[in-house]
């Protein structure tokens, strides 16, 4: 089934109207030597019924947050997703439209993106935001690109506590360019020491990138870090934030950030094995003409009615080509729509409660786990949000594997390539969101104590 609708009779009529004997004539510009001789070597067409069965079987092979209590975070979070979101974004008017180039025929998408931009700017406590980027990691790289373009400097300082994928993408993006990426190590408390950061900044520093809560869930001192950044005029402070945390914790703009970026997945997008997600990008007004990505602006129509359109397109690749602020074209529209519906459904109160509950549940869990003999918080004196590192009495990988059989998704271990291979084998990152019930938290503690708790004395 390929969803075509031309009947054999119509096909003949059309060929006649065109004036050719057969469809093959229309392919005459492909040299016979360049044509594929036989059929593609692919499985034969499957009917919808067969596909349903096959896909159900493939899906059922996997366990995940739908079958287990998920305590995994590390950049991808299992938050409550209100039913309304799928109902809205599943509408064909949104699902099957494209980038709103023709404003008069796309006011629905444009207004939704304008509302999204307003919300992202509000989360970041900054002036403006774009209509999304690919994901959190590319958003970090794009933010650093903006800084380099704005001040022409050649050093990018990034906290080593930023998500490993973001740092890896940053390295890839700058590897061919005359810009050096310098990682600032964390102190023994797991966060960046603002004084060490201040030491590292020089006149050629384009920006300082600090994520909070950081990859280990710890709350960084953005205020002090960005103050250090601003000790050199024109150096930008780039905050990497968690949009849920903004319902409760200090927002980037409140702490002196010039640009703020985030992985937007927690805002109503399921885990779905890491994508598609969306990058959030907010900035101070001063940088708007250097921003990457689509921007929706407010204007009027010829009757003076309020209306919305894509704007400042001269920044973009289709006009500026190699001098564009970014190469992005298709962004993450439907995910941005999910995020805006999510934020409107929860409202300020709901977002605050979601953040608070995550905070309280993670702290309750951390306290109880730390009480088990043999387990300890790796950074007991540093504040955290909804995840924390535990040093375990056994290798994390073994605990994770055993936990699956008990109905828990744990991990990731911190010494693998997927997590930047930074931790020691016994370190385990654990996350709790509002979704985890007390019963689930307690039974995880009970499992860890039973299987791995050491005898206090003998």
């Amino acid at each position, binding site marked *: 089934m390929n969803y075509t609708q031309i009947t054999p009779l119509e096909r003949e009529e059309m060929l006649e109207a065109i004036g050719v004997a057969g469809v093959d004539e229309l392919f005459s510009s492909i040299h016979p030597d360049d*044509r594929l001789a036989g059929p593609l070597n692919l499985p034969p067409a499957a009917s919808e019924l067969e596909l349903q069965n096959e896909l159900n079987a493939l899906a059922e092979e996997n366990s995940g947050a739908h079958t287990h209590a998920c305590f995994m975070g590390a950049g991808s979070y299992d938050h409550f997703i*209100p039913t309304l979101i799928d109902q809205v974004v599943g509408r064909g008017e949104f699902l*099957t439209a494209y980038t709103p180039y023709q404003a008069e025929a796309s006011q629905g998408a444009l207004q939704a993106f304008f509302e999204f931009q*307003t919300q992202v700017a509000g989360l970041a406590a900054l002036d403006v935001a774009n209509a999304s980027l690919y*994901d959190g990691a590319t958003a970090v790289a794009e933010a650093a690109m903006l800084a380099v373009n704005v001040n022409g400097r050649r050093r990018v300082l990034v906290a080593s506590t930023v998500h490993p994928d973001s740092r890896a993408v940053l390295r890839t993006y700058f590897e061919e360019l005359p810009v050096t990426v310098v990682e600032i190590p964390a102190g023994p408390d797991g966060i960046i020491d603002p004084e060490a950061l201040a030491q590292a900044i020089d006149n050629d520093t384009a920006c300082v990138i600090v994520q909070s809560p950081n990859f280990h869930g710890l709350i960084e001192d953005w205020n002090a870090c960005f103050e250090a950044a601003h000790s050199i005029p024109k150096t930008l402070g780039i905050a990497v934030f968690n949009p849920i945390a903004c319902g409760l*914790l200090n927002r980037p703009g409140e702490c002196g950030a010039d640009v703020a970026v985030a992985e937007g997945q927690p805002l109503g997008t399921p885990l779905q094995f890491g994508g598609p997600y969306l990058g959030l990008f907010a900035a101070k007004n001063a940088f708007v003409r250097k921003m990457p990505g689509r921007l929706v602006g407010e204007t009027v129509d*010829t009757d003076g009615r309020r209306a919305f359109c894509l704007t400042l397109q001269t920044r973009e690749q289709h006009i500026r080509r190699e001098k564009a602020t970014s190469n992005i074209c298709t962004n993450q529209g*439907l995910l941005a729509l999910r995020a805006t519906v999510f934020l409107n459904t929860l409202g300020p109160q709901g977002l605050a409660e979601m953040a608070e509950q995550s905070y309280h549940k993670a702290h309750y869990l951390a306290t109880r786990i730390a009480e088990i003999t043999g387990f300890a918080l790796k950074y007991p004196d540093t504040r955290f949000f909804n995840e924390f590192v535990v040093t375990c009495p056994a290798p994390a990988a073994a605990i994770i594997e055993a936990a699956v059989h008990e109905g828990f998704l744990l991990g990731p271990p911190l010494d693998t390539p997927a997590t930047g291979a930074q931790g020691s084998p016994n370190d385990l990152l654990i996350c709790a969101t509002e979704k985890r019930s007390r019963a689930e938290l307690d039974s995880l503690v009970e499992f860890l104590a039973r299987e791995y708790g050491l005898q206090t004395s003998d």
Partner: protein
Amino acid sequence: MKSTHADALTRPEIHTMGTDKDANVTTENIVTATPRGDRPVEPLVFEKSIPGQRAVTLPPLDVPETALPSEIVGGGFPGAEIGQLDLMRHYTHLAQRNFSVDGQFYPLGSCTMKYNPRINEWAASLPGFTGLHPLQAETETQGLLRLLFELRGFLEEIAGLDEVCLQPAAGAHGEYTALKVIRAFYHDHGQSQRNKVLAPDTAHGTNPASCAMCGANVITVPSASGYTDVDALKEVIDREGADTIAAFMITNPNTAGLFDSKITEIAGIMHEAGGMVYLDGANMNAILGKARPGDFGVDAMHYNTHKTFSTPHGCGGPGSGPIAVTTKLAPYLPVPQVEYDDVRSMFSLNYNRPKSIGKVRSFFGQIGVLIRCWAYIRSCGPDGLRDVAEMSVLNANYLASQLHARYETPYFEPGKGKWCAHEFITVPKSLLAHGVTLLDIAKRLIDYGIHPPTMHWPVHDCLMVEPTETESKRTLDTFIDAMSRIADEIESHDDAMHDAPADAPVRRLDEVAASRKPRLTFTDSQ
């Protein structure tokens, strides 16, 4: 100032192409539809906010609270408060103000706005896929890894190339990733001086922009009669120095809707120069199962699954842009790669690729999009895919053949046996000579319930029309009818043209004002 002609204009409804109308819809009954009158402006959600309203609540907190030190607490999220019904109505109203493939014919050239099969949506939303955390153990996600591995194989076969990387988030991201891979190959082979990338003047803007992001210099190659000018290409190579050139980025079928029959000659020239051929695969729809890039000399390419493989465009994403490369480029692909591990007899994500360019994104790819892509390829099968190409080319040639008398098609010349691929461009010179602009024509199409084609690209004053294979002959005929009526309106100097659209939710916008003093967010002071 409101023109009197606008009032005289008949006001077709905008949602006329859908199922809410008589099945025998023609432009005849569209233009005689009763005017609906002005639609009200839909307030912003922030203007609908009423303190105290909620759309959803959370269960009460069931653990003891932990102190929240005031120095970490911020000012909170300044969003709207709105109940569920009013929120739903808000989005219903917004949806009604949007053209879409589901509602209207959407012949947006280069974008392949084909039907998005609903089985794909169903598949991607299965909890066994959406519930997976990206850092789970491989043993727990074998079903999904198997699907991804199979998809890799499908895309390798369709491309006629050796290895596919599924990770890029969209076409532009695929271009960027593949160019990085090509650069890495040259670095590794002691040819770091190859930092120039050639691209035709008709290339999509993402091509030069992606080059720049890789630190490569873009050299423009002129076109002649819609094709790459082979002599110009040779000249550019001689002028720049063969050993400074990394690649030629070519779109084939190209952005003028033509399959460049000199592609193997071009590939030969590039390979002779020691460079590579990169294919922008945006137009793969036209050659699925008919020809394979690897067979006509391409070294690396990207797909746009949101074009070729029916994954929805979602108001601008998410797309996905898998890349396919030859064996010699494969070691440089991003990590991790989805593989079958013979030793452990299982599917796995391999990070151990020492020559890899590293990571280009968070986690591993647009998984939800890739699931849809897999389902589409499985649904079509090899013959179905070839039919997709044939029908998309048939539909485009049918439209071109019926329109070209009044809408000039510079490269579609049936008399000379010059056909188009899956799309064509028209530069309607004689109609524009009547004092209308291309924008007038595009906006008037909205009144006929049709999304305007791509405008002013790859050449000025052109419309790029891509019907796709999923449209019925009836819809194509309705479009032909609408275009003819617009031509009539232009020739009879109907001023309605300048006022179009008359019946969209808004009339023509002042886009200049929007960029002069950008307002990108709502503030209460407005």
